[in-house]
């Protein structure tokens, strides 16, 4: 009976360590693949533990792709001056970040430029992402932006 308990636990460990796909920046995003996304907001999830912004990005040929951008939780964002009401569906925002490792249309919203021109660090603190000189509002490669 106890042996079965242990077997279940071992199985649980095996399953839980196998499919780690997220968290901590390097598990989910690729630090060598910076991306700049410009698009219209289609959806906002102002949630804990992470916020998500979905934007329609139009490429040269007019094809529209919907990208998801993962940001910090509401508490962290509002402390940086970004409130839920600052964004409306249809607003155009610029997202500088890094692509998801699995190739999906997901990026981490390291730096978001809002319609009113403000540039906010959207990243999740303590996730270990690159392109930061250590300060919260760090430098991103290929963007030339620094606060």
């Amino acid at each position, binding site marked *: 009976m*106890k042996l079965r308990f242990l077997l*279940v*636990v071992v199985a649980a*460990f095996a399953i839980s360590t196998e*499919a780690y796909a*997220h968290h901590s920046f390097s598990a989910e995003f690729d630090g060598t693949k910076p991306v700049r996304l410009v698009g219209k907001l289609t959806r906002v999830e102002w949630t*804990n533990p992470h916020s998500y912004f979905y934007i329609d990005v139009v490429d040269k040929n007019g094809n529209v792709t919907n990208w998801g951008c993962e940001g910090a939780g*509401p*508490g962290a964002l509002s402390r940086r001056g970004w409130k*839920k009401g600052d964004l409306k569906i249809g607003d155009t925002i610029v997202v500088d970040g890094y692509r998801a490792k699995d190739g999906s249309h997901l990026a981490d919203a390291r730096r978001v430029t809002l319609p009113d021109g403000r540039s906010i660090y959207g990243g999740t603190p303590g996730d270990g992402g690159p392109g930061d000189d250590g300060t919260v509002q760090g430098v991103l490669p290929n963007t030339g932006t620094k606060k």
Partner: protein
Amino acid sequence: MPVLQHMCQVIYDSPIGTAIRESDYAFPVIESVHVLAITLLVGTIAVLDLRLLGLVFRGIPVTRVARTVFPLTWSGFAVMLASGLLLFWAEAAKNYSNPAFRIKLVLLVLVGLNPLIFHTTIYRRVHEWELLECSPWRARAAALASLSLWGGIIVAGRAIAYF
């Protein structure tokens, strides 16, 4: 949509669930309490488990260690249950399809069955072995199961964020 999933969606969409999920402070605070209270729940019961395994307090009767630890563990359980329910309230729909969350629930059931079995069997005769430095094998097995299951629960809980 299956009934259970629908119920989770209703809980998720509720005003309180939404408020917690979109909060600036409530969610982080509730979650931090949940993580730190692990010490009160698991940390204390681990001391009893270690006693049963003969690794600590060998000179102290098992019943005395148990008596000391149980109020603390139950307090920890109350805090973990309350904070856990609030977190679930905020995340219910997402939790439903989360494999780590499901495993955590299964392990929680098992970790609850373990002491039930322990207390109705070998622990009934504890006065025969409470002074032994190393407890009977059934007690040691229960202790190992406890430590393993709680360890699995902690890891599964952390893994929820990964799915």
